[in-house]
């Protein structure tokens, strides 16, 4: 099985060494790491099995973790390794070269050191000097907090130490050396598996899937290994023993005949041991926190541009699956997936670059590629401006050990804060791209909530790269995402929890599918929505597992299936590019404009066409005129000017007819406006009508001015008019220029304290909203005072129900030019309405004709098209 290569595309097995899949033609060869035999590598077996690759990856991870745990050793170790003869000069040279990516040197160091064990039965001499010297240097250089951690770890792990069969280390060595010696590409190939954050390698075969687990789990022992120099093998033994200790727990994992399974189990076990330590002491997770911070940093940075990508699937997952069971199921699938495809790691190498982009591993890859002078793929830089800061930041931390002392434990605690206390929910943190999703999603919740989480305060203290994950701050609970999901409903009432404006992209909301679809922000599909993420597809289990009974389709898988369906559908219908109407000449607009202008100009200039005045009198007219005739002349009528200057052409005409009768009867008029420009309009109209009837300002009419605040102010005014309007407008002046009176202290308003003290309230409104506000909000304060609405033609249908109700809230209504003309006729005082009648009639006739033509043209095209379709 191990020799055969499983195709990443069709999953069929291909004979070893095949360059491309015999079934689907997918390329296999470049993905294989040629394990070139090299004499200079000690303990190298002639034929290095493929598995060594996986181990190498695992060990690379292990090495990388060591750099995380014992950052301060990094610089010293390399030369000393060189002296120890554990590595060739060119190897060292390349390591320095690759240094910034920080993967090379430790990766080289570890297998080298381990590789000599088989030859030197119990205590590898070659390894000792190599490890002792740095070990000796360590206490001088490592900060106290780190040494404390190591001491504690040493005490904790010691009892478990036992020797263990070796051989894998040598394989590891071979595999690793083979890649190192091989020119750039293999190194670059090996590195992604080692350099990517936990999530990056997770989707791979067991070796990969557990790679992160291994190095994370092995983190503390590796730190301790450098702390406890005397037993240099202890660390190695320790993690092996750890692993051995947890096989019982692994009985949950289905027995698998494949060679990788025991290793998988062991590595899981390692994780268990490590997890228990992690939970035991926060300090122990410093190195881990370092790693996590890097991962989070990258993830958060990358997500900074791609929140929507990760939002939907994960939130749906989190919301719908709701908790650890699902998390466990997911994780077990990952595990099984690994055991299913032992050799697919190599096959999926390149895919992994894309898959893991979301987890920020591309930052690291970018670093690496840059360091070996390979051009960086465009897509790799896509993830965004913050994208390239992650790795350097991470490295700068390594180079500044002291500085990180205080901040790291803090970060560790922050990370652990969300950590599930049970080991089992932990693995999801290693699931592909899940951490990235989690980091952002809950983070978003936090920010949407006001980002009032502690991380905000931490932000100030942490360096940038540590501050990055803060965006997902609360979401620092990567794996804890599930834990959070199952804790929240228990601690918060559902309704309260739901009030957190977290954007939940539920695929089950049919209408929201489009919006929910993930938005790719890297790769050639950058910017496209609904792109199927590579990882979940690759990670889709192919066979039911022990969880089969529980393996009903999760929300996440459902979402992915839906997504795939959508994508297939989308293929058929392409997004139409926005039509550039601006490029076309607006012929129709010109024709319509010309016809309407002509229709209006002719009656005004030539006098034709001429239209007969309306003979029918609206049934609303006589009651309104009767109401005005009954108005008391000793109480002012309040006229509300609720229209903008744009409507003055219509409203002056319609209201003019009404006000002409009111002021003609000598009823005092007080104007008020709910619009800033209303008072000026009131001045224009009332001055004109008052001049016609010889009414003087101050005694015959008055302007209260502007009532600011919209509907709210209408309420205030209705409740207590004098409190709402403080100052008059266009206050009348005596001949000597002195103001005769202010707003409320004018004689007209002397008797007015409440809205019901007016003789009538008339609202001249161009719209429906404010007219309704007066009918609804002010009417209750009006008592028996009649409310009249003078309306623009378009507002009538909405106000009329208030007028025609069995208990009317509106006592009179006047709307539109025809009614105004009829009013003027009935009032025997032809005014502006009459002068507008002919152009109005002509323009309406032209409009009717053009609309009819439009209907006929549209119908004709419609029928023609529908007639053509069947023929086609």
């Amino acid at each position, binding site marked *: 099985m191990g020799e055969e290569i499983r195709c990443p595309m069709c999953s069929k097995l291909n004979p070893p060494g095949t360059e491309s899949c015999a079934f689907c033609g997918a390329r296999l060869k470049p993905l294989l790491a040629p394990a070139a035999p090299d004499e200079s590598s000690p303990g190298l077996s002639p034929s290095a099995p493929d598995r060594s690759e996986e181990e190498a990856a695992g060990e690379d991870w292990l090495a990388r973790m060591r750099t995380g745990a014992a950052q301060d050793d990094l610089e010293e170790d390399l030369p000393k390794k060189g002296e120890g003869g554990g590595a060739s000069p060119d190897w060292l040279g390349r390591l320095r070269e690759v240094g910034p990516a920080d993967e090379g040197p430790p990766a080289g160091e570890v297998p080298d050191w381990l590789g000599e064990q088989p030859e030197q039965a119990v205590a590898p001499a070659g390894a000792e000097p190599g490890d002792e010297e740095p070990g000796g240097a360590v206490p001088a250089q490592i900060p106290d907090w780190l040494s404390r951690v190591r001491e504690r770890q040493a005490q904790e792990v010691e009892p478990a130490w036992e020797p263990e069969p070796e051989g894998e280390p040598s394989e590891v060595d071979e595999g690793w050396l083979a890649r190192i010696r091989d020119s750039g590409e293999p190194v670059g190939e090996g590195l992604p598996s080692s350099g990517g954050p936990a999530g990056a390698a997770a989707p791979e075969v067991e070796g990969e899937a557990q790679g992160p687990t291994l190095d994370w789990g092995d983190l503390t022992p590796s730190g301790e290994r450098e702390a406890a120099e005397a037993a240099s093998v202890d660390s190695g033994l320790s993690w092996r023993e750890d692993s051995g200790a947890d096989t019982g727990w692994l009985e949950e994992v289905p027995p698998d005949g494949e060679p990788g399974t025991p290793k998988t189990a062991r590595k899981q076990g390692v994780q268990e041991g490590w997890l228990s330590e992690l939970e035991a002491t926060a300090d122990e997770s410093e190195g881990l926190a370092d790693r996590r911070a890097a991962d989070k940093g990258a993830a958060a940075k990358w997500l900074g541009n791609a929140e929507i990508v990760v939002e939907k699937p994960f939130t749906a997952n989190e919301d719908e699956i709701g908790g650890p069971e699902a998390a466990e199921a997911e994780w077990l699938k990952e595990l099984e997936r690994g055991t299913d495809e032992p050799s697919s790691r190599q096959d999926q190498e390149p895919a992994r670059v894309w898959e893991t982009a979301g987890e920020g591993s591309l930052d690291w890859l970018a670093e690496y590629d840059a360091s070996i002078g390979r051009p960086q793929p465009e897509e790799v830089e896509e993830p965004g401006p913050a994208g390239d800061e992650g790795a350097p930041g991470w490295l700068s931390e390594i180079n500044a050990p002291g500085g990180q002392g205080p901040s790291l434990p803090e970060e560790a605690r922050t990370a652990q804060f969300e950590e599930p206390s049970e080991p089992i929910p932990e693995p999801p943190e290693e699931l592909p791209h899940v951490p990235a999703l989690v980091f952002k999603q809950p983070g978003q919740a936090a920010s949407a909530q006001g980002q009032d989480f502690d991380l905000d305060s931490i932000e100030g203290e942490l360096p940038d790269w540590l501050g990055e994950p803060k965006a997902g701050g609360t979401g620092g609970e990567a794996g804890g995402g599930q834990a959070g999901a199952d804790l929240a409903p228990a601690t918060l009432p559902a309704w309260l929890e739901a009030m957190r404006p977290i954007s939940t992209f539920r695929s089950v909301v049919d209408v929201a599918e489009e919006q929910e679809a993930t938005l790719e922000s890297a790769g050639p599909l950058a910017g496209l929505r609904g792109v199927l993420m590579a990882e979940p597809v690759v990670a889709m289990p192919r066979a039911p597992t022990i969880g089969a009974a529980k393996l009903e389709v999760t929300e996440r898988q459902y979402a992915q299936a839906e997504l795939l369906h959508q994508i297939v559908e989308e293929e058929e219908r392409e997004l139409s590019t926005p039509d550039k109407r601006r490029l076309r000449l607006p012929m129709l607009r010109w024709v319509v404009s010309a016809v309407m202008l002509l229709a209006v100009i002719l009656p005004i200039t030539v006098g034709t066409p001429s239209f007969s005045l309306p003979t029918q009198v609206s049934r609303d007219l006589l009651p309104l005129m009767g109401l005005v005739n009954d108005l008391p002349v000793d109480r002012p009528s309040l006229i509300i000017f609720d229209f903008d200057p744009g409507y003055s052409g*219509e409203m002056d005409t319609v209201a003019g007819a009404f006000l002409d009768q009111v002021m003609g009867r000598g009823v005092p008029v007080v104007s008020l406006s709910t619009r*800033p420009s209303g008072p000026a309009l009131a001045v224009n109209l009332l001055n004109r009508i008052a001049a016609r009837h010889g009414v003087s300002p101050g005694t015959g009419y008055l302007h209260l001015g502007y009532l600011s605040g919209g509907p709210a102010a209408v309420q205030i005014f209705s409740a207590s008019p004098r409190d709402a309007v403080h100052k008059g407008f266009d206050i009348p002046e005596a001949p000597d220029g002195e103001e005769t009176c202010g707003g409320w202290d004018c004689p007209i308003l002397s008797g007015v304290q409440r809205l019901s003290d007016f003789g009538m309230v008339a609202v001249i409104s161009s719209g429906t909203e404010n007219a309704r506000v007066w009918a609804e909000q002010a009417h209750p304060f009006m008592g028996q005072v009649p409310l009249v609405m003078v309306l623009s033609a378009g507002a009538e249908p909405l106000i009329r129900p208030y007028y025609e109700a069995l208990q009317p809230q509106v006592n009179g209504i006047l709307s539109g030019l025809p009614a105004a003309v009829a009013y003027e006729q009935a009032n025997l005082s032809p005014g502006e309405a009459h002068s507008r009648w002919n152009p109005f009639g002509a323009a309406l006739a032209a409009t009717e004709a053009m609309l009819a033509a439009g209907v006929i043209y549209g119908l004709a095209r419609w029928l023609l098209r529908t007639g053509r379709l069947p023929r086609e």
Partner: protein
Amino acid sequence: MLEGVIGPILAALLTIMMLSYIIGDNPFFRLACYIFIGVASGYAGAMAWHQVLWPGIGEPVLEHGLATFTDPTLIVTVFVPLVLILLMLFKLSAATAPYGTLPLALMVGIGAGVLVGGAITGTLIPQSLAAMATLDPRVTAPQTGETGLERVINVIILLAGTLSTLMYFRFTVTRAASGETRRSRMMSLIAGGGGFFIALTFGVMYAGAVAASVIVLSERVQFLAEFFVNMLSRLTGAG
């Protein structure tokens, strides 16, 4: 002179510049728009100051002096709003914006209260009650005088229009086994009727708006015609 000649010339010029949009977007139209925004903004600002802020805060502070900060009534009606306004000024800068959130939160809360209260007491209750018209043929409508079968038919149409329109907007749908979402046949029928009523209502209101805007168009054209006639008569008179 100013109001008799310069004013009308200015008004006619600006009217033509604005109406030139009929031809298409052009610099004259743009210029007219910017002038309009400037003038409208300046005028609104002056109104807000003279009609609201000065009488509401400026005058009381001048009138009562230090008492504004000691008299409980003035503290509530003048001092607190003054402080809130000062806080609001923090929103002028991105750096200080967070410190000015209090007045905004207050306004949003008040607005939400007015929105909910106004919608329930102003529309939901009165409109629902108004829709509950009696189907008794003996009743006579006070304003229209309708009675008998005519009124009953009208009430039924009103009722059908109100209810079907209301149901037209229903958002939730049932999901078929195939995963497709659809409305039940009954709901589709009612919603279809609602759509028809909505189309009628919109058609009526559209026609009303056309009629209103046509009056304004004729008023503008009439103004221009009268302006040119006056100018010609002045010129000929002067000549």
